[in-house]
């Protein structure tokens, strides 16, 4: 990234003052190395976001930021409906409510030794993954509506998981204000066979072990004991969410002139929160969020079944489930005054501070768990929200390592078979229907997740609790 007009405001914080159409500054959280490696397009996209109506505070980029569609991935922006603020379909993206959930167990790495191959086989067999895969469920229109309004709560009532799971999911597993009537027939049709599927690309189900504890008190409260096995599931709202993104992106682009909106980039398609299309999108997006929560709940059930067929004592209780492609209405303090804002987090994770009432009771004293996905073969992290995050970026943190090269570049550099063999040599079993897909997701195609989370901590966005290392990775 070119550094002209970037003002250093701290060890890991950089500000770009408003110029031209920008209404607020742009702020990037990065150290010198991450900033230098960041794509120039992040800067351009962040400044575009800063020009949208009703934006409050600043447009923020997290340490894992990279070039996205309209918003940078790793972008955070809040809008005030009272000030003509907008909701942006591009600011949420195509994979609405993509997120991570992590399951705990008292099984240790030693318990899994000797069963790793069998476990990998069982999980790969049970978890529908990749292009063309279908789930076990077929929902008729009535059931689909129930799922879109009920989220993970619906899934539990249908026998997938337990009521205890719901306490450890954002909003108790059910996003209120969902409007199934705002979902198109195409979106419904795309979801018909996809409930309980993982998807492809960077989505995965990973068996991991707690390799390092950074904050012993928080780790103990979170149930993360050194050496213990955990499972992380990374996926989103599947075809329904993709189609909702497509539908409303187009509709908002077409409607923009009627609201007097001049979009610096059509991908920033947005509409006033208090408009017909803005209201419909929010209702549709919330329904898609419920779809993602229900999907992860079903996958959790399938995962537990597979595990228990190999290790009967596996509990798999939920640590937490948090999304990183969302727009949520939240209350935040602006210049000493509490205001209701629509916070867009695109490739960024909510990170509420200790004591926040939205954090489940058993975890509350230590802050909201922030689940940072790895990149097949590399570490994942559990962070916790901290006090300073509210003033820095509306209580938000990073979401993963972030790509450092394109899929095409990755396939020129790595071969899938070699990667699978190489990782097996390191004790990590990869199960995927596509070796080309594995090459495209090569760990080397991503930034260093260690550096990203370290910078997030130094910046005051969140603090590290534990590092997780992979043992088995099921990918699409």
């Amino acid at each position, binding site marked *: 990234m070119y550094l002209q007009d970037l003002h250093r405001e701290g060890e890991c914080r950089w500000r770009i003052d408003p110029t031209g159409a920008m209404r607020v500054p742009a702020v990037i959280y990065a150290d010198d190395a991450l900033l230098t490696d960041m794509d120039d397009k992040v800067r351009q996209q962040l400044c575009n976001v800063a020009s949208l109506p009703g934006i409050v505070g600043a447009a923020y980029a997290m340490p894992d930021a990279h070039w996205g569609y309209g918003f940078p991935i790793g972008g955070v922006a809040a809008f005030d409906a009272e000030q003509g603020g907008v909701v942006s379909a591009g600011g949420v993206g195509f994979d609405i409510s993509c997120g991570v959930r992590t399951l705990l167990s008292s099984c240790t790495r030693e318990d899994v030794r000797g069963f790793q191959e069998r476990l990998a086989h069982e999980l790969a067999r049970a978890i529908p993954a990749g292009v063309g895969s*279908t789930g076990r469920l077929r929902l008729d229109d009535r059931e689909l509506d129930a799922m879109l309004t009920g989220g993970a709560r619906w899934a539990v009532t249908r026998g997938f998981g337990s009521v205890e799971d719901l306490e450890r999911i954002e909003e108790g597993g059910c996003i209120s204000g969902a409007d199934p009537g705002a979902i198109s027939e195409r979106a419904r049709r795309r979801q018909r066979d996809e409930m309980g599927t993982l998807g492809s690309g960077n989505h995965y189900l990973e068996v991991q072990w707690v390799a390092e504890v950074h904050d012993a008190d928080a780790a103990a409260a979170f149930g993360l004991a050194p050496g213990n096995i955990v499972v992380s599931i990374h996926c989103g709202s599947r*075809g329904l969410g*993709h189609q909702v993104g*497509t539908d409303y992106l187009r509709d908002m682009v077409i409607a923009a002139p009627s609201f007097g909106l001049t979009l610096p980039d059509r991908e920033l398609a947005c509409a006033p929160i208090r408009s017909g299309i803005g209201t419909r999108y929010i209702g549709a997006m919330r329904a898609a969020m419920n779809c993602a929560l229900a999907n992860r709940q079903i996958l959790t059930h399938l995962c537990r079944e597979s595990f228990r067929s190999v290790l009967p004592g596996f509990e798999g209780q939920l640590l937490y489930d948090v999304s990183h492609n969302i727009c949520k209405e939240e209350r935040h303090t602006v210049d000493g005054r509490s205001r209701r804002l629509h916070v867009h987090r695109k490739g960024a994770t909510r990170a509420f501070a200790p004591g926040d009432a939205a954090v489940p009771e058993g975890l509350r004293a230590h802050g909201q768990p922030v689940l940072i996905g790895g990149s097949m073969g590399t570490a994942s992290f559990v962070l916790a929200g901290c006090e300073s995050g509210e003033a820095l970026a509306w209580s938000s943190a990073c979401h993963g390592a972030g790509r450092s090269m394109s899929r095409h570049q990755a396939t020129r550099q790595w071969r899938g078979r070699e990667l699978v063999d190489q990782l097996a040599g390191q004790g990590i079993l990869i199960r995927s229907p*596509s070796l080309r897909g594995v090459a495209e997701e090569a760990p080397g195609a991503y930034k260093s997740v260690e550096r990203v989370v370290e910078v997030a901590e130094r910046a005051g966005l969140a603090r590290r609790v534990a590092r997780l290392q992979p043992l088995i990775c099921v990918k699409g």
Partner: protein
Amino acid sequence: MEGRGDTPAEAFEQTAMALTAVVTDPATLRDEVSVPIRCRAPDLDLLLFEWLNAVVYEMATGRRLFGGFRVRITDGELTGEARGEAVDVSRHTPAVEVKGATFTELSVRRDDDGRWRARCVLDV
């Protein structure tokens, strides 16, 4: 993704082929099924967005991959077909599913040599 052709329609066909190439090697695909596609938009850029997303929809809901496309554009309306077969994971080893065509770098324009260029960034 980028497709070029003597007409916008040809450029659209080539862009759809590039979409397939993101998922699998188009040479592995058999010509077993034909799916009609119709869409309409106020300008060529939006029509490309609609066309590619219609292809993505047919791929997703039909569990199919397409290795051949035919497009006709008249007065803002596209009439086309996609030809291919059902996904066979062992033979196609599909790398990634396409979530949708985006507005990022979306453009349909005529180059100095008179040929048409259609381009778009996909979300995968």
